[in-house]
């Protein structure tokens, strides 16, 4: 998330929380912690005070590789003219019903 220098040497961690069994872990924020165990502990205190989760992942922020915003056009625009990838592209006679 950030390339800013951490609190002296406490590295930055990204926190992902699974809100309930059967759902995916979702990014919910970041925090500084000395190590993974402490990051988990703090994530529990900060992000799950109201039963928001049943499972937590913490990942060192430095371990995340993100796409470059300058490449946005190159990466994502090609999908814009491939509307045949969507079901609504195809006209089906009404008598067929739901398909």
């Amino acid at each position, binding site marked *: 998330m*950030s390339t800013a220098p951490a609190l*002296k040497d406490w590295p930055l961690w990204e926190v992902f929380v699974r809100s309930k069994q059967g759902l995916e872990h979702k990014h919910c924020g970041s925090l500084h912690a000395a190590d993974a165990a*402490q990051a988990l502990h703090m994530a529990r*205190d900060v992000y799950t005070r109201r039963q928001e989760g049943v499972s937590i992942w913490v990942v060192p922020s430095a371990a995340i590789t993100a796409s470059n915003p300058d490449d946005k056009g190159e990466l994502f625009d090609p999908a814009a003219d491939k509307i045949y990838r969507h079901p609504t592209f195809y006209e089906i006679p009404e008598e067929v019903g739901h398909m």
Partner: protein
Amino acid sequence: MYTQAMDIPDESGKKLAVVPGAASDQEAAFEARIAADGRIEPQDWMPEAYRKTLVRQISQHAHSEIVGMLPEGNWISRAPSLKRKAILIAKVQDEGGHGLYLYSAAETLGTGRDEMLAGLHSGKAKYSSIFNYPTLNWADVGVIGWLVDGAAIMNQIPLCRCSYGPYARAMIRVCKEESFHQRQGYEALLVMMKGTDEQRALVQDAVNRYWWKCLAMFGPPDADSPHSAQGMRWGIKRISNDELRQKFIDATVPQAKVLGVTLPDPDLKWNEERGHYDYGQIDWAEFWNTVEGNGPCNKERLATRVKAHNDGQWVRDAALAYARKQKERQVKEAA
């Protein structure tokens, strides 16, 4: 959670000049996105003044959260029952969490947390002035929940639509938790109002001391608020100081009636024509004097905050030393 200080200039604000000139492609793209009410994310290009405004505002907001833990924290050991103590601990812990969400959002703009904390501790950065007043009796804790958090909610709801993505997302999380703060305060006061005459007098006294300070939390009148216009244009600020203040007053008057307290303003009356309550003159000289550091508790709050930070240094060092040792052990075992 408390946001008045948002457009209070501090040291960093002095460098804040919007340089006119030929707009670059990047700047045009930024302006177009703002105009379309789109969101700006950390990796996107943004004007330096936008970045600085956000760092100042979000860090002031974060500082307000953690300094806000102090006046209420004073009452944890004095809460009148175990129930009220548990509630107060939960609320103060929330404020710490809100500070963390906000520091994280500010860090995405490239300013380190240690740098922001150093600004707070040196007195360079501002925080909400409301915390520079003392909490004299138990009713103050209720009034802080009802009025201070109530004012903060008014301020923060529009911030959920702020143009800077990480700030808006932090505010959504904060607003979800904030409603508990206001309700617990109001309910604590309701209980006191059903008690003895002495208890009722304590509530009225707390309301009298906090009412005008809460109105000032919305910041200077629009006419005297130079940062506001730019903040509005950038989609950082959505509703003006005066408009929010009016909304807060209109919402609070009926609540005061139910509670059975009077609000200490002889000019407070319904204006049929405007469809709003009229109110008296806020003492801005007193407000600015407190912002400048001369309120009754400025020195005490800052000293407590700095002491807590310094006293915690060995914990931070020890955690780091432990993490390093664990890592070395793992490497050794793997070898």
